[in-house]
């Protein structure tokens, strides 16, 4: 590392830093390395911010005395820069006044960074998001690595808020209104090269080793980032701003309802009113931010974030096992899509089926996913090469994970696993994607029944974030753990469930959907039912969902759960070959992949509210039963599974949480504290 000088002023020990290191080198450059104590990543919590304040005190003084010529910010974590504000601490900010008191000193600190007379340069490798991005926007110059790990973004909207450390004002000033607002409204991550093009970063280097030297150069040259000017700058002024605001409003409304997710709409309001003035935007941001921060929506979305972390923790840390090769047996829609998803996650997959044509069709169907996932021709071609048709099953012996997705017939599955169990590599995971059979039954004839687990994917695989890991009564823990680790490795959330009919997701969905279909039988308006569910916050109404899943599939799930014949209307449709979206007609007539609905029916808001609540009641009731029967470990995991498996209104925090807050007649005074010892982060 750098040579430190013995000069008195550069003695930084008196700063008493725990989460940062500060050294001043022979060229009088101060290097501040963010490296949170006992944490694997850097979150901007209270202590690191206070320590950063002392660093700024020091550099201000040393700078004015000529003892320091510049400040460089680095991360001591090899894989990430700053992963955002410390969400664990948000829970304490439960009144608007506390929020305002909380952000004010941080904003004042960032103003001092910006006003520093010596250059302040951030050198970024790995994700830099949320509060981290706000911090570096206050610096004078930003260098980043041209690495796929380096990503910038404002994920705040996903927590029901928007940037609150004056990031709204700074990002618009730095990058112009369009890219900045887009980043804040969508919460999506920005790759380094794009961040450079948009102005979030000023310079890119090839690898982390070069960062330090690029930062040094920027400091010695007093490089200043160029703010958005010209046309880009004009976009924040009238009349462009008004036009942009209304355009953003309509685009956002297409994705979320203002009643459920107010944050993006409040951000657009703020931009529309004050986006033309940096000072006004800065001053007004906290006032718009504070109410969001204390809202129940934000509290629940934070809860959802912690739930997602809990799901990731279903796989034990430090498992020395890295799946690289997957063998999928059965090239139907599920099998092929599972194979495609694993390939898109960087693995090599052999896809086996009795029918070579089926394999070919299944592989072809993945083309779109690869095109979306991989931006360059060589990477797309490499993905294609990783998805290997394997009618003979030669990949079986080399695979780290084998997933069966063939016809749901017990004898056939038993025979298959009996046949393959001796051919698998030692330590390879052996799993069935069954949704209707018992893992114990399938494992029954095996030499080593303990090896078999269920890995239950949902359709469509690419869109559904949750995967159920089914622990049969006979399944060994080590296999279940590996199954969960595999699901983490393909970027999905694993949920370990007991082997009961319907597992968790189908089990809670079925009574909800059957209930809704029963209402249609009883003569209620299906469109009203769907609209009521959406008004409650479901991503899709239950009738439309039934049509999308396929009424035959619904009937099948109903049968597994012993709910057959519960819905006559649906039964008649199935008999008539009207299976829903896939046949062009079910409850709805489907055109161009969309159900035909009558134009805008004026349903009364109150009516919808009542109906929506009634509709989800069976789901909530079943969720409670699932908890009582110990299908998953605890209530939080029930909520997590239902939210990520069914899309259950995330802003309501999950069915059990919703029920308990409702019973209390309002939001709880504090959310259940996160169980993670790891610091929680805003970044995904």
């Amino acid at each position, binding site marked *: 590392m750098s040579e430190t000088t013995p000069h008195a002023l550069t003695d930084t020990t008196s700063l008493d830093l725990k989460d940062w290191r500060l050294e001043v080198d022979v060229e009088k450059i101060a290097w501040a390395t963010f490296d949170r104590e006992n944490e694997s990543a850097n979150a901007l919590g209270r202590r690191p911010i206070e320590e950063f304040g002392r660093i700024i005190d020091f550099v201000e003084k040393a700078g004015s005395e000529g003892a320091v010529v510049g400040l460089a910010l680095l991360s001591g974590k090899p894989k990430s820069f700053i992963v955002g504000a410390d969400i664990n601490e948000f829970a304490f900010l439960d009144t608007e006044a506390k929020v305002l008191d909380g952000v004010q000193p941080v904003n004042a600190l960032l103003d001092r960074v910006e006003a520093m007379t010596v250059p302040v340069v951030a050198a970024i490798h790995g994700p830099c998001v949320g509060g981290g991005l706000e911090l570096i926007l206050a610096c004078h110059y930003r260098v980043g690595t041209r690495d796929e790990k380096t990503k910038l973004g404002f994920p705040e909207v996903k927590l029901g808020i928007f940037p609150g450390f004056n990031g709204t004002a700074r990002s618009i000033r730095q990058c112009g209104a369009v890219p900045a607002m887009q980043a804040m409204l969508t919460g999506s991550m920005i790759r380094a090269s794009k961040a450079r093009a948009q102005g979030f970063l000023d310079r890119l280097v090839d*690898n982390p*080793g070069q960062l330090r030297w690029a930062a040094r150069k920027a400091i010695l040259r007093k490089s200043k980032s160029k703010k958005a000017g010209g046309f880009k700058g004009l976009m924040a002024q009238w009349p462009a701003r008004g036009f942009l605001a209304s355009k953003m409003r309509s685009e956002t409304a297409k994705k979320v309802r203002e009643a459920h997710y107010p944050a993006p709409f409040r951000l657009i309001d703020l931009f529309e009113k004050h986006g033309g003035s940096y000072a006004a935007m800065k001053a007004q941001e906290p006032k718009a931010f504070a109410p969001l921060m204390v809202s129940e929506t934000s509290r629940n979305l934070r809860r959802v974030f912690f739930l997602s972390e809990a799901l990731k923790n279903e796989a034990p840390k430090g498992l020395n096992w890295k799946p*690289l*090769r997957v063998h999928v047996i059965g090239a139907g829609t599920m099998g092929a899509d599972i194979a495609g998803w694993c390939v898109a996650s*960087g693995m*090599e997959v052999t896809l086996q089926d009795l029918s070579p044509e089926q394999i070919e069709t299944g592989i072809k169907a993945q083309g779109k996913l690869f095109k979306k996932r*991989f931006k*360059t*021709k*060589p*990477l797309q*071609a*490499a*993905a294609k*090469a*990783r998805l290997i048709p394997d009618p003979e099953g*030669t990949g079986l*012996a*080399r695979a780290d994970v084998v997933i069966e997705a063939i016809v749901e017939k017990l004898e056939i599955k038993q025979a298959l696993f009996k046949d393959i169990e001796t051919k698998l*590599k030692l330590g390879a995971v052996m799993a069935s994607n069954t949704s209707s059979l018992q893992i114990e039954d399938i494992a029954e004839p095996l030499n080593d029944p303990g090896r078999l687990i269920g890995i239950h994917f949902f359709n469509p695989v690419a869109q559904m974030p949750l995967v159920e890991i089914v622990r049969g009564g006979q399944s060994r823990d080590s296999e279940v753990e590996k199954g969960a680790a595999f699901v983490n490795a393909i970027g999905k959330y694993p949920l370990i469930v007991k082997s009961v009919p319907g597992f968790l997701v189908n089990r809670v969905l079925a009574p909800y959907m059957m209930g809704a279909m029963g209402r249609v039988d009883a003569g209620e308006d299906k469109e009203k039912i769907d609209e009521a569910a959406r008004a409650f916050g479901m991503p899709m109404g239950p009738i439309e969902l039934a049509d999308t899943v396929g009424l035959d599939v619904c009937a099948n799930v109903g049968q597994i759960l012993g709910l057959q014949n519960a819905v006559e209307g649906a039964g008649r449709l199935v008999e008539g070959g009207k299976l829903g979206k896939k046949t062009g007609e079910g409850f709805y007539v489907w055109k161009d992949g969309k159900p035909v609905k009558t134009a805008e029916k004026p349903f009364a808001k109150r009516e919808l509210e009542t109906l929506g609540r009634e509709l989800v009641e069976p789901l909530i009731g079943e969720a409670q039963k699932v908890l009582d029967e110990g299908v998953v470990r605890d209530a939080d995991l029930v909520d997590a599974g239902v939210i990520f498996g069914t899309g259950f209104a995330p802003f309501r925090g999950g069915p059990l949480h919703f029920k308990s807050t409702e019973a209390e007649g309002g939001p709880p005074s504090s959310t259940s504290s996160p169980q993670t010892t790891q610091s929680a982060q805003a970044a995904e």
Partner: protein
Amino acid sequence: MSTLRRVAIVGGVRTPFCRSGTLYADLSNLDMMSTALQGLVDRFELNGTHIDEVVGGAVVSHAKDWNLAREALLRTRLSPSTPGITLTQACGTSLQAALGIAAKIATGQIDSGIATGSDTTSDPPIVFTKKFAQRLATLTKQKTMMDKLRVFKGFSPGELAPQPPATAEPQTGLGMGQHCELMAKAWDVGRQEQDQLAFESHRKAAAAYAEGFLDDLLVPCAGVFKDNNLREDIRIEKLAELKTAFDKSEAGTLTAANSTPLTDGAGAVLLCSEDWARERGLKVQAYLAHGQHVGNDFVAGEGLLMAPTLAVAKLLKRSGLTFADFDYFEIHEAFAAQVLATLKAWEDDAYCRERLGWDGALGPIDRTKMNVKGSSIAFGHPFAATGARILGGLSKLIDANGGGRGLISVCTAGGMGVAAILEGAEAA
């Protein structure tokens, strides 16, 4: 120096190899070599470890990569105290790197080393003509504007024509394929036997893949898991239909299929003393027992790629071994014709007596022991990486076999041959 130490090979990895301009089109030698090195670090848990030296290089190299080996290792998690040496000996580069490391380990100068090599023709260094380059060099020394302008006196646009790297032999002006075509004629190597050898190379390599032999030898790179030159579905009839590639007349026998294509990729092998391996709990796969390299007089008309005949003869003489003492032969397949000409030369009494100084033919080698897991015609041949590929593969083979002895023979551009002997623990 009292006694020489045994040189252990812990194992090797390589990136999958890809035909140039395909899946690695966006990568550089630096990218691929550091990927291979990091793959080795991951496989043998060398994070933060100091290695006494990393030696290797690339044949087609940019001037800015003037110490490629050091630059590449700096991009891995090896300790930065690990020094790097860049050398090349064309297609013998990484094997030669291993021989140098081995000599230092044997004498106790170092305890550990990594031999590495990378090549890409997807990222070729294109340079200006010498004349224009000289002008630019002079330009930087000029002070006034007039002086600077004067540098361009007599400039002609032709000077700007880019100069791609030449693949031809500098002395003869002939490409490798043209030289090998001459060897095929001199040794009467027919088209059919070349095609047969190429066919077998693909079949054996495909079988090696299918049985998982290559799984721990390969480190995925840029999303690639598998060599993309390999054809599992190869058919001998199809090979026979191909047009010749170098001599388009009736007399030509070399085709694109029985020659190696231009290939991108990298490889690395970990060598060390037995103590060093033991201290780290690393299993020794094989020992590097002997090495030899030598050149021939191709400029005066000898076969350009016939030098391995000389290197192997010297190696056998020195080790006191004969072909019968070997369980495996790794004869690098630059061209099928080159392998076959080499084999014929070893079986030729007159050649072995006159050229190799033996009493008679070195003898035939048991073809069932040759390139048993496939070789360069199937995998492809990123020049500097091939030695590392062979070392890693043969070590694993010897280890999996529970011992044995293997002979490596690699021909190189510039009329040189590099050879080595690997042995299991008990053979020494």
